[in-house]
């Protein structure tokens, strides 16, 4: 299984590494975060993920930097593995295309990670902000991140917890959102009589933690530590959400234990050149 799913382009090992995975989600926040990390830290590609459950896509030079005279015409595929020289215990995996089957992909991928003996998996994703709990609709709304952790090891005292709201905690919250008549995303009609009597936290968790993220967490059980970080957002200009998630990850995972050094260092956060036409190219002058 290992040789089929992952094709290395050099000497690379997953053993005892922290794998940071960006998956397709609302606004592609996971992908944006990984793009930002890869571009800012000049990560090198070390392999390709070849899965039947990821749709194919190819393109040239997403991280081309004219200042470093990087050669042009380097093709990139839909799922790739990168490493950062200054963070040797971490591998970055970016998935750039939709996944056709969450369940089958998660099973295949989790088996591969287990056989590769990784240390832990961090999944970067996003969820629709309409599923926020009421206690989240207070204060700043731009960068709410929630954590869903499968096996709680190694992060109990991590600063990352200061930035997140925990879905796992039991919190009593008001149920007034249930009194709205229409859910704008699914067009379902809610009323108190129609909703099953589940705790609100459980309902929100079911809505937020879904798809590939949910399947990966379930498949990680008894195999390796896994954490899912979700940014709550709507689809639009999600680059700030991606940047926020990347910053969060770099502080607490990429450079774990070196936060002070990171803050003092002269890191230049750099978006990839492929973000240039994120919302389309310039208008055709022939229109005028």
């Amino acid at each position, binding site marked *: 299984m290992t040789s089929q799913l992952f094709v290395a382009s050099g000497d690379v090992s997953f053993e005892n590494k922290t794998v940071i995975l960006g998956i397709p989600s609302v606004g592609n926040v996971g992908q944006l975060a990984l793009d930002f990390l890869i571009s800012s830290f000049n990560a090198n590609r070390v392999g390709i993920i*070849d899965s039947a459950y990821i*749709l*194919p896509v*190819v*393109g040239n030079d997403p991280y081309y930097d004219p200042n470093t005279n990087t050669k042009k015409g380097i093709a990139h595929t839909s799922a790739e593995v990168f490493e950062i020289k200054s963070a040797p215990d971490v591998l970055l995996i970016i998935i750039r295309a939709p996944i*056709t*089957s969450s*369940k089958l992909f998660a099973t295949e991928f989790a088996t591969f990670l287990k056989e590769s003996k990784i240390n832990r998996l961090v999944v970067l994703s996003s969820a629709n902000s309409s599923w926020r709990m009421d206690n989240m609709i207070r204060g700043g709304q731009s960068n709410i991140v929630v954590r869903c952790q499968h096996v709680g090891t190694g992060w109990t005292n991590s600063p990352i917890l200061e930035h997140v709201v925990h879905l796992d905690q039991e919190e009593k919250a008001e149920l007034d959102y249930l009194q709205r008549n229409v859910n704008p995303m699914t067009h379902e009609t809610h009323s108190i009589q129609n909703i099953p009597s589940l705790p609100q936290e459980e309902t929100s968790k079911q809505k937020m933690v879904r798809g590939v993220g949910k399947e990966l967490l379930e498949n990680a059980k008894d195999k390796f530590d896994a954490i899912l970080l979700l940014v709550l957002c709507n689809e639009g200009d999600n680059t700030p959400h991606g940047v926020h998630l990347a910053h969060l990850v770099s502080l607490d995972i990429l450079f774990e234990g070196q936060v002070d050094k990171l803050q003092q260092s002269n890191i230049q956060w750099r978006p990839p050149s492929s973000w240039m*036409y994120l919302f389309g190219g310039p208008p055709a*002058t022939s229109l005028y």
Partner: protein
Amino acid sequence: MDIRLHPLEPSDWNRAEGIELEAEEEINRINECKPPSFVFEEGVSKEGKYECDLLCIGLCGAGASFVRSAVINSVQVKKIAVMHQEFSSNRLDEEEIHNRVSNKTSTDKGDCTIYALEDPTILVAEASQKITSLQTFNWTQTLIKNISFKRLIILDSILQSQYQVDFEAYPPLLRSITTSKQQLTKSLIPLEAPNVVEGLAASLLSKCEVLSIPATLLLSLEENHILEGDTLRAFESVVLPSLKIRNKGPIDYKTVLAALKGRRVNSLFL
């Protein structure tokens, strides 16, 4: 006329935010996609596999039209195999609509026909059927299982409206994406970021990258409303020398383009 109403399913790339299929539905959709059949002509394959140095595949639309006009209709070729992909009758996405309409008027029922040139180590393939996203993996696997090639050229097009650059582009315009094992030549301009290619072209190129096979994807700029001769002419200077075909004068694209006119349904929504 039998009118059947099907529920519209969003395609995988365009699925609206928040609309997710249940895990079982996703698995059913994948299981519906059977691998294509691959049939060699009698006496062609040795031990079920054909070995060649170069395989040039023209994909549905501009690529297949160029292969038909500039190669199959112009030089002597020998048919060696046919790949046929069944499509599910329950799906109503864009690619399936295209296949149903085109198959009604097409006299060639071979969805991907592979020919050998005078030099039997050079093959050309005319892939006239649009392969859906879900089918691309199996299609690519089947091709590689039956044809062993040392180098691959894929011919496809990119629509003018989807081509994102900071200048106004018109056909003829050719861009390329190559695998890391393929040496870049000065005559080929790489496709500019952030333009991407999906579908069968992407699947073939990705597989070649995985298998470390030198491969080139050539993309010719195509106008949205109609496929024209300029789009096909853009391939000539690069592809014909690679296939060792001498250019004996202007190539007749009109016949093939005229046949396509009635079948073009890229923007037709039934």
